[in-house]
């Protein structure tokens, strides 16, 4: 069973968002990394770039396929996890910790309300698996 920690926001595209004040941290969920298989390359944007909600901000390549990454909410990228360049396996080993992908300044704080809670996301992936 996939790990879905409490306290994070989740998108139906299988990204998570941790909100601390005006800053959001984004990564892919444990369920996503498990479905992708071994991640071998992560393509991320540069700090300073701005994205709309649901926009493609990068891609993640596993031994199976290349998948696009979608930003759960709008914002300006303030920092990206450069260590994933050399150690993409962090996405598999610690998707909610060392495998984080980027931090952003949230454009609209209210947008998080449209995202799923841990319980809702758990139901969503369960329904998806049927």
């Amino acid at each position, binding site marked *: 069973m996939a790990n879905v920690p409490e306290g994070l926001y989740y998108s139906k595209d299988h990204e998570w968002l941790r909100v601390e004040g005006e800053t959001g941290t984004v990564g892919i969920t444990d369920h996503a990394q498990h479905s992708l298989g071994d*991640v071998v390359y992560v393509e991320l944007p540069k700090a300073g770039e701005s994205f709309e909600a649901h926009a493609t901000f990068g891609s993640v*390549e596993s031994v199976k396929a290349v998948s696009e990454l979608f930003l759960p909410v709008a914002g300006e990228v303030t920092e990206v996890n450069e260590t994933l360049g050399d150690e993409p*396996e962090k996405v598999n080993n610690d998707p909610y910790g060392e495998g984080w992908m980027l931090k952003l300044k949230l454009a609209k704080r209210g947008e998080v309300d449209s995202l799923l809670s841990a319980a809702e996301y758990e139901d969503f992936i369960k329904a998806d698996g049927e």
Partner: protein
Amino acid sequence: MTITKAATHVTQNEALVFERSQTGRRGYRLPALDVEETALDELLPAELRREDDLEGVPELSEPDVVRHFTRISTWNYNIDLGLYPLGSCTMKYNSRLNERVARIPGFAALHPLAPEEDAQGALEVMYELQRHLAEITGLPGVSLQPAAGAHGELTGVMMIRAALDARDGTSSDEAQRRKVMLIPDSAHGTNPASAHLSGFTVKTIRSTPEGLTDLDNLRELCASGDVAGLMLTNPNTCGIFERNIKEICAVVHEAGGLVYMDGANMNALVGVARPGDMGVDVIHLNLHKTFSTPHGGGGPGSGPCCCTAELEPFLPVPRVTSGGETGDTRFALEYDRPQSVGRVKAFYGNFGMHLRALAYILTHGNEGLREATEAAVLNARFIAAGLADTFDSPFDSPPMHECLFTDKRQSRKGVHTLDIAKRLIDYGFHPMTIYFPLIVSGAMLIEPTESVGRAELQQFVDAMKEIAREAVEDADTVLNAPHTTRIGRLDEAAAARKPVLRWRPAERAAGA
């Protein structure tokens, strides 16, 4: 059960050609000079010459080299060895006759810059092939230039761009140009790439639970305007015929867009149904799939574009045309097509492939082409029926020339699609296409083509059933496969994460 293998693997361990080097071995000996020797300095200045005694270049005799490469060649799995069921790739047999035709000296030795009057035979071959492809697709305009499938796609999409701009008068008005290219979520990844390269914005169309293009979603997307066209594969990558194709084309046409069809799966249609009759405006064909020219190993490929009469002015130049009369210039290369997207390939495309494809078409004839299509679909359905009780199928629709299964049942025991594919190698088969289409989790896409007989199809079905049994009773055997190859399971993740791309990396880097 004891494995009955379709082919055996050669297991000798061959050293790299560099490691086989022995000082003084050589493959030639020149006769003594019968002219006066010229000092090297007079021919080649010192700064252009290597001073390192060709360090690293192996020294080998002719038999050393021949044996080395022959041994390595036996490790390949190839279409002449057995079933190569890569879904969406149509790995069919490449007939010896086609190869012989391509080697006829008058064709093989013809210079690409030979004047038209000296190349009438070659031009006739191209003209005839165009004529046949027009008949097969129901689309009268043909260019043989594109060098492969994705290149044909790009050409087709560029033609859509040019045709819309000509129609709407938006050639020089970027803001007014139609921008949206619709692509189903089951499409080949090259489709959005081609659209993007031609300046289009891609919008994705959902698939229905049946594995078909969602018509309602298509209508919604068309209603929002700005639609330039649709890129559709039919049968789609799930191996299912888009039975609403006429309506799909009508919806796109009503919205002012054009329909491009990806011809990757034409092996399900040749001689039976024509894209032109379905409402398609432009299509590319893969001669290296459907028309049996070599596929893989560098081919080279060939991806002709076929289009409606309305789009014909936009085809690449030069066009191969016929004046109809006899004589030295009966067939000609025409450059004067002002609306053309221009040249997309040096010379006239991969001509050797045109010869092979024409030979394939002529040796089959109308009936034969239709029979090949029917056999390709029948073979896929034989496998689909044979494995229906063993593997989960994501869709109920009957498959066309390829069938799709998932690892849903097996993955409960921890055995996944990748493991099943690896184990198939032990049974002497090339694995199927895996994890594609992307919309199907754990996809296994199997395309046997018409080139295999019933006995080999049954052997494949038996192997897959046996692997499913092993997955339950002896999962480790599957999880650690392959066992009978030169080397066992590779760590694909490590190979991608930490690739070793050069021989003796440390030493070379130190010496540089």
